[in-house]
């Protein structure tokens, strides 16, 4: 008896069911069943109203049964499909998450060993040997970033991306990011400049993750310039928000692809796609991190003219004044 009660309760606990399948509440099977029931009742009433004009009760009974059987079959089929797709999706996300966790251990081992070698035990290594170890370090960094990106995507999809928020000066964060990309820009003959008309914009963010967002936007701007060019990073106080704009005169994004740009694994089919490496995860992650920090990310782009990527984060004071902010 208790079991039955518990089962009924579980079936009606839409929120729990939706969380378990990783879908929205209105996509939960029980909710869809309730909707189906409602549709069937409406259809039965309609059939009754129409067939009442005929004087044959058999016709009413037959049409009612037909309507119920038909709607129930179609409805159950749809609900089962939705449930299966949701389950498969969830399994896929879990797989990515588990696989990335497993990969992280050997990556940490490699990174720490290389660091130990280079910093504490490098005496006796020849210039050539040091150069090779540095190359290995570089590759392991790259692999680490890739695994991190995959794991972040899995966490975003599970609603489990943890942000360690602290109060920092947004201007310093942008400066650090620009500095770290200077070598990369120089190597590609790109002029990387910043302009900031304020010197203090306090925000509550996860410093590491937000610098990943900035690095992504700036390195994208540099990567997608064909030949020489200019990247400009502008920081300003926009109505209680710290706002940054990364502007380039690169290849731009074709208009018909602009809606897809922040989707998972999407890479624009622009003229230099094959000459630049990328996974199509950077902007998806960036958008989610910014939004989870209470901000917004958007862009403007014209093909063969350039792109402007913006994002804004609420200033700390602004956040305190706004009680509805979450």
């Amino acid at each position, binding site marked *: 008896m208790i079991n039955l009660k518990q089962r009924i309760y579980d079936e009606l606990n839409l929120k729990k069911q939706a969380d378990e399948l990783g879908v929205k509440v209105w996509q939960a099977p029980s909710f869809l069943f309730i909707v189906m029931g409602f549709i069937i009742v409406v259809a039965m009433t309609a059939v009754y109203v129409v067939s009442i004009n005929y004087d044959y009760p058999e016709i009413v009974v037959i049409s009612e049964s037909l309507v119920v059987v038909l709607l129930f079959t179609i409805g159950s089929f749809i609900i089962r499909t939705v449930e299966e797709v949701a389950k498969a999706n969830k399994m896929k996300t879990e797989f990515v998450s588990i696989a990335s*966790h497993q990969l*992280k*251990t050997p*990556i*940490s*081992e490699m*990174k*720490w*060993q290389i*660091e*130990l070698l280079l*910093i*504490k035990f490098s005496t006796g290594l020849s210039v050539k040997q040091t150069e090779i170890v540095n190359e290995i370090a570089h590759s392991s960094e790259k692999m*680490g970033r890739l*695994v*991190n990106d995959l794991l972040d995507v899995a*966490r975003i999809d*599970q609603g*489990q*991306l*943890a942000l*360690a928020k602290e109060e920092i000066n947004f201007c310093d964060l942008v400066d650090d990011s620009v500095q770290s990309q200077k070598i990369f820009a120089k190597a590609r003959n790109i002029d990387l400049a910043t302009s900031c008309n304020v010197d203090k914009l306090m925000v509550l963010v996860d410093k*590491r993750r937000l610098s990943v967002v900035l690095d992504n936007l700036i390195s994208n701007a540099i990567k997608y310039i064909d030949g020489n060019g200019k990247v400009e990073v502008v920081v300003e106080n926009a109505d209680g928000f710290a706002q940054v704009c990364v502007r380039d005169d690169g290849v731009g994004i074709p208009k018909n692809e602009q809606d897809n740009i922040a989707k998972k694994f999407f890479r624009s089919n622009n003229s230099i796609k094959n000459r630049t490496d990328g996974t199509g995860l950077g902007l998806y992650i960036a958008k989610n991190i910014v939004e989870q920090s209470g901000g917004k990310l958007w862009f403007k782009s014209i093909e063969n003219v350039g792109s402007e990527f913006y994002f804004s984060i609420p200033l700390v004071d602004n956040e305190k004044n706004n009680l509805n902010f979450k």
Partner: protein
Amino acid sequence: MAKLLIIEDDLVLQKALSEYLTSEGFEVECAEDGEIGAKLALTGKPDLILLDIVLPKKDGYAVLAEVRADENSKNIPIVLLTNLGSISDVEKALELGATTYLVKADYKLEEVTAKVKELLHIK
């Protein structure tokens, strides 16, 4: 000289971390499972503990709870070393009294050392 306790079952990571910290002038003690780790934490009087979460015999959360429950060791700073790092893992760790946490694959040894020094107020 500050005394550190590293509780980490991955011996490659444990060795790299302990050698780096030793060369930075720390006295380092290591444990490779939660049971030995908890014992050393309660009896060895470390100044700071670096603690992995996924451990054989007793996991990091259990060690954390045990250390925090003991009068002599409840104020020792504990840095969680993990490759987990989802919201629920982090929340659970901080709730149980971890001082801070580091994701191993994202941190360099140099950064781990800087964190340890910061927590022990060593310049």
